[in-house]
C-alpha cells in the first residue's frame, strides 16, 4: 500500500524528518507514537501534500505510484485521507456540500457518474448515526463553531463517507473525552478491512486500547527509533519517551 524509504524533509531549511523508513501493507494498522515536536504531523502533512515542506531525499510509493509527485487532491482522490490534528473551519461551506463535492470528485476520478442525491443522503445519514452525531451538523458550515471533539468526530465522519484506502489520523484522540473516543474508535473499527490501511499518529497509547494496531513505531527527532507490536505501546506508556530517546542517544 505505502512504502516510505529514507524520507528526509526540511521546513525552512531545517531538517525535520531525518530518514524515515516504513512499509505498510493493505489491511494493516500502524501506530506512530512520539513526543511533541518529533515530526509526526510533518510526516502526515508530507504524505498528504501540504505546501511548505521540502522533500530533500527518499521516496514514498503509494500503490506503486510516486505519491510525492501527486497534487494533494489527486492523492485524496486516489484514496489517501488525512484526518487533521487541527481541522480547519470553513465558514460558508456546509458539511454536506463539501462531502458531496469530495465524493463526486472521487467518482469522477474513477470514471463514475455523480452520486444519486437520494443514495447520497442515505449513505451520509447512516454514517452520521454511526458516529452518533446530530444530523444538523450536516447543514452547518464545516467545523465552524464546532467544539474540539466535534471537529475530530467530523473528520472521522468524512473518512467513513469517502472510504479511503489509506487513512492517516493525526492525533485524532486529542480533545476527545472517553465516550467520544469510544465512538470514534468504533467508527474506525467499522472501517477496518483487508483493503484498507491506517496510520494512527498519537502521543498517548489511550486510543490504542480501542483500536488495536498491528505495528507500533516510535518517532523521535525525525527518525523511527523503534518498531514493534502492540506491546511496544504499553512499554512506552510505562517507561516514557525518555526511554527510547535515551536508547537513540546511546546508539
Amino acid at each position, binding site marked *: 500500500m505505502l512504502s516510505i524509504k529514507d524520507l528526509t524533509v526540511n521546513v525552512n531549511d531545517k531538517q525535520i524528518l531525518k530518514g524515515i523508513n516504513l512499509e505498510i501493507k493493505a489491511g494493516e494498522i500502524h501506530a506512530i507514537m512520539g513526543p511533541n515536536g518529533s515530526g509526526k504531523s510533518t510526516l502526515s502533512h508530507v504524505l498528504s501534500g501540504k505546501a511548505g515542506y521540502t522533500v530533500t531525499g527518499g521516496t514514498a510509493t503509494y500503490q506503486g505510484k510516486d505519491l510525492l509527485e501527486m497534487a494533494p*487532491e489527486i492523492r485524496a482522490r486516489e484514496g489517501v485521507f488525512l484526518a487533521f490534528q487541527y481541522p*480547519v473551519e*470553513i465558514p460558508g*461551506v*456546509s458539511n454536506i*456540500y463539501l462531502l458531496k463535492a469530495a465524493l463526486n470528485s472521487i467518482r469522477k476520478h474513477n470514471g463514475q457518474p455523480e452520486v444519486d442525491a437520494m443514495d447520497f443522503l442515505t449513505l451520509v445519514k447512516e454514517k452520521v448515526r454511526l458516529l452518533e452525531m446530530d444530523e444538523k451538523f450536516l447543514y452547518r458550515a464545516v467545523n465552524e463553531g464546532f467544539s474540539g471533539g466535534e471537529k475530530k468526530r467530523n473528520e472521522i465522519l468524512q473518512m467513513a463517507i469517502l472510504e479511503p484506502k489509506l487513512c492517516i489520523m493525526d492525533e485524532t484522540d486529542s480533545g476527545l473525552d472517553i465516550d467520544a473516543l469510544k465512538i470514534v474508535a468504533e467508527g474506525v473499527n467499522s472501517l477496518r478491512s483487508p483493503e484498507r490501511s491506517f496510520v494512527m499518529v498519537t502521543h498517548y497509547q489511550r486510543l490504542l486500547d480501542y483500536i488495536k494496531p498491528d505495528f507500533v513505531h516510535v518517532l523521535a527527532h525525525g527518525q523511527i527509533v523503534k518498531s514493534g507490536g502492540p506491546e511496544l505501546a504499553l512499554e512506552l506508556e510505562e517507561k516514557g519517551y525518555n526511554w527510547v530517546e535515551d536508547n537513540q542517544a546511546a546508539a
Partner: protein
Amino acid sequence: MNTAIASRYTAEYQTIASSLPGQTLPWLRALRAEALAQFAEQGFPSPREEEWRYTNVSGIEKKLFAPSADITVGDINTDWLKSYQIENAWVLVLVNGHFSAEFSVLTDLPEAVSVMSMADALAKQPAQVEKYLGLAASQSEHGFIAFNTAWFSDGLFVHVPSKLVLDRPIQLLHIVTGDDAMATTRNIIIADEMAEAKVIETFVGNDSAYLTASVTEVFVGQNADLTLYKMQSESEKAYHFGGSYIKQARDARFTHHNFAFGGLLARSDIHADLDHASECELNGLYLGIKRQHIDNHTRINHLKPYAISRELYKGVLDDRARGVFQGRVIVAIDAQKTDSQMNNRNLLLSDDAEADTKPQLEIYADDVKCGHGVTVGQLDEKSIFYLQSRCVDEETARNMLTFAFANEMVDKVKIRGLHDMILEQLLTRFPQEGVNKEWL
C-alpha cells in the same frame, strides 16, 4: 468642481423643467430651484471632500448625460425585464426615470396602502410628499442630492399605515437604456407606527454608459419594522449614485441589505438617524471585477440612548477593481448605552485589486459599547489545503471559498425570488466552476 460642467447641466435644465412632475406645486418648484442653484454652486462631489476622498467622479463630469423626456421602451426586451421582477411582489417599474404602467404590477394592494409612482403621489397626495421630501436627505450634503432634487423625473412612493403588516414585498425595478442617458429618481418610503414592510430596489440597465442618480428617503415609525434591499447590477459602463437616507423613530427597526455588483463607478450612501432604542442593521456585499470602482458610504447617527446598530460589509475584488468602504458611526452626547458594532471584510483576488476601508467612530457619550473590525486579505491557504485534502482541486477550492465568503451575505436574504436572483448575479461575476447550485 468644474463650474463649466454645472452650467452645462443648468442650461440643459431649462429645456426639460416643464416636463418634470409636480411643477404646478409652488413649494416643489421653489425646492427644485433652490436645489438647482445649490448644484450650480457645488457641482458633483470632489475627492477633496472627506466623504468622497477615495472616489473621483470626474468620469461623470466628462459627459453630459441627457434626461429622456419620456419612457422610450421600444428597445427593451420584455423577457429580460421580466427576469428581474420578483415573483409575488408588487412591482413598480421605472424605465429611464419614468413610470411604466405596462410593466408594473400594482394590483391587489390593501386599500390603506399607497404604492404609486412619485408623479402620481404628487398629483394625488401632494401634502404627504411635501411633508417628507427632503426631510431625511439633506440637499447640502453633496452635489448628487441637490442634483437629484432638481432633476428627479419620477420615483416610488410607498406609505404603509399604522399597524399594517405587508405580507408581500414591494419592488422598485429601475431600468436605464441608452448611451448617455440619465435617470434621476426620487423615492419616499414611509412605514407608520407598528407597520411592517419589505421594499426592494433593483437597478439594472442594458449594455450602455448611462447615469443613475437615485435618492430614497425612508421613514420608519415608532416600533415599525422596515427592511430595504438594494441590488444594483448596472451595466459595466454605467455610473451609479444611489443614496438611502433613513429616519428611525423610537423603537423602530430598520434593516438594509446592499448588493453592489454593477457599474463602472458606483457609489451608495446609506445614512440612518436612530432614535431611542432603535435598531439598525446594515449588511453589504460589493463585488468588483475588471476596472470597476465601487464605493459604499454608511453613516449611523446614534442620537438617543439605547439604540443598537450592527453593520457588516464584505467586499470581493478581482482584476484591477477598487472597493471603498467608509463607515461612520456617530454617538451623540445623549446617546448613552449605545451598542454598536461595525465590520468590514475585504477579499482581494488579484495583486492589482484594491480595497480602501475607513471605519470612523465618533463617540461623544461615555457609557457605550462600540466596536469595529476591518480586514483586507487573501484566501486562507490553510483552508485551500483542507479542501484539497478533501479531493477538491485548487482552483475549485479557491472558487468555493470566494463564493462562501460572499454567500454569507446572500444567505441573509429571505425573500426567495430575490435571493435566487442575487445568487445568480454572484455566480455570473465569479468563475462558476466549483460552485454547484444544486448542492447548495
